[in-house]
């Protein structure tokens, strides 16, 4: 008895929520070839963990100022690919790459690439909110300070600006000196976004930014992505099909390390070319 009522409730509430959210959607771009320049480009790009090839010969253009979603079953190499873009994989000693991955036309894994400079331009927000055990202010000011901003007034400006952009200013403006670990999970995640925005990156990499959050906090993060759309090149890994279709312009579908399909989001979700993609987005496997 209980279960049936519960189920009815969910099945009723989901479409309602979906339809209300869709109202606010700005029009999505319908092309992945025209209208923008390739900000990030992969050419026959493979990533290995030791012998194991986690990402296999991917070739793709990620357009500037687009929101690009990466979907695919667990273990298909989404995170691995995303982390390659700001060289986070350098932390894993066994990880190495072949082929080329270009950022603004320059090879990310080139011999003379300064990964520190690269990461300043390519910011990342992780699956689990990871604020530093410092005050909210110090969290946001961390990046700017690193890059030479020491003036207290200037820092304050940056902090406020970043927090406002991340839509969390109103919630934390009266406790900037409190430890960031005291915030809720959703607030922490938006704080992390603000922290990334504070160094003024060009690209924003989001690796399942909402998987640790409740629906309300998730909605806030999605709104945030909508706000940032058009100002940054955004790449978001997600397991949530609705989320991908709601927030992204283009979608990449990965399967076992292979880039199976890359299409405008609307097209990929309504009219997938590949049968595996179709199986995946219709939930026949996950």
């Amino acid at each position, binding site marked *: 008895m209980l279960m049936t009522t519960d189920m009815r409730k969910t099945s009723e509430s989901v479409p309602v929520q979906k339809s209300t959210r869709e109202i606010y959607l700005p029009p999505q771009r319908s092309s992945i070839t025209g209208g923008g320049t390739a900000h990030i480009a992969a050419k026959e790009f493979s990533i290995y963990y030791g012998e194991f090839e986690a990402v296999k010969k991917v070739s793709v253009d990620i357009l500037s100022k687009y929101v690009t979603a990466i979907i695919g079953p667990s273990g298909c190499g989404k995170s691995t690919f995303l982390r390659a873009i700001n060289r986070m994989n350098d*932390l894993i*000693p066994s990880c190495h790459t072949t082929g080329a991955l270009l950022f603004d036309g320059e090879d990310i894994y080139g011999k003379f690439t300064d990964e*520190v400079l690269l*990461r*300043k331009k390519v910011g990342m927000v*992780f699956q689990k909110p990871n*604020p530093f*055990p410092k005050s909210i202010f110090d969290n946001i000011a961390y990046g700017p300070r690193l890059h030479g901003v020491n003036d207290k007034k200037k820092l304050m400006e940056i902090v406020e600006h970043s927090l406002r952009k991340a839509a969390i200013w109103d919630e934390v403006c009266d406790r900037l000196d409190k430890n960031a670990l005291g915030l809720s999970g959703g607030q922490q995640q938006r704080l992390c976004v603000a922290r990334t925005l504070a*160094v003024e990156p060009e690209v924003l990499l989001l690796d399942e930014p909402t998987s640790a959050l409740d629906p309300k906090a998730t909605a806030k993060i999605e709104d945030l992505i909508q706000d940032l759309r058009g100002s940054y090149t955004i790449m978001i890994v997600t397991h949530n099909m609705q989320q991908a279709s709601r927030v992204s312009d283009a979608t990449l579908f990965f399967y076992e390390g292979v880039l199976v399909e890359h299409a405008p989001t609307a097209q990929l979700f309504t009219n997938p070319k590949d049968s595996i993609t179709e199986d995946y987005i219709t939930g026949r496997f996950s």
Partner: protein
Amino acid sequence: MNIGTRKILDRSFTAVGIGSIVVMALALMIVVVPIVYNGIGAVFFTGTVEHRKMLHAEFKRGDSQELSSEVASSNRYRAKIYDMLTGFEAELETMTPEKKAEYQAKYSQVRTALQALLGPLPGDPEPMLTRFKYGQTRWDKAEEKLHDLLFESKWDNSNPNVMSKEYFVSRAIGFEGTSLVRLFPYVKDNFENMLLPEFTFYWGFITDSSVDSHFFGGIWPEIQGTFFLAIGAMLFAFPLGVIAAVYFTEYAKPGFLNSMLRSANSTLAGVPSIVFGMFGLAFFINTMKVSESKSVIAGALTLAIMILPTIIRAAEEAILAVPKTYREASLSLGSTKWNTIATVILPAALPGILTGGVISLGRAAGETAPIIFTAAVSVGSAIGLADVFSSPTPALSWNIYNLASEHEAATQLRHVQYGMVLALVTIVLLLNLSAIVLRARISKKLKC
């Protein structure tokens, strides 16, 4: 497993746990209570007028006027004894040579016992050693010495099958029929008047230097030496250890050399401290010649080498315990590796690093063997900060051992030994306590 058995298991485990804690606490009590009781006895005790005389003469402490009136009153009672002694000496002259020889021997024993009680007698030459310049300074010791005066200790070895037994014979009996027989009851009855016992709080035990190798005075040079050595060791070992730990955890490439270095470090942590002592002598003094011979700097370096592995291990563990996500967050903001370590990793690891550091500090303060050959002397005055490069120093750990087993009057100086032990235990305890407080404060700052 059904719920009943589970509950019984839970309860019995709780009981065993509580039991073992109680046993531990009892064992601790058995060790600590005598240390605290006797150690406090070095500072709070019943002191005699001899103690006050000593303080005034050696440390210029106490009120001269009050002291001279005390001495005068004490001397009034002592004068009678001196009279008796002169009387008896005159009596000796009138005796036959055999009798005289017999009494002479016993009489000199009485004189020795009296000297121990009251200090030099009239007519005695000025003693060379300070310890003989004064009578008993502590009332508890004086009472023992009084017993020595009143009774002669003899050994009963009539039965060859059992161990000899000590028994006491009244000395007064030996002087039956002479004028000296009156001396014994007189001393006994006027003992307090001669020594004027008074409750004493001798804080100088902490702040004074010792006089005549710990017979009188305090243990300041030892305390100071302990601090010099431990803090000196920390100054070398702490930065070095943290840097090494950062290298091991952040920079070293995994490989043969690295794993060799790590296991060498672990082995080093288990090497007996006496080996470090020999090493310090051979390396720092004989080879490197950091000083002519024993010196604080050589001892501190030796201790530093000894605690280095512990500090490295603790720091390594603390650094590895820092969540990976902090590192990722910092790097993803365009921070350099070094900056990430300095601004994120080390601050987050600080509580653990500090705990390891302070535990090592306690160990450096307490170790004896490494400083025997490199830094410690049994008797010495407090040294200045400028002398650490050339002078050795007394230190609590070494002097406790020395005083308890090497000192020529070890049995008479138990109170000093206990005082030193209590001082050392207190220092180590305070260090650990400060580490706990510091850790808690930093952790709290990191958490909320």
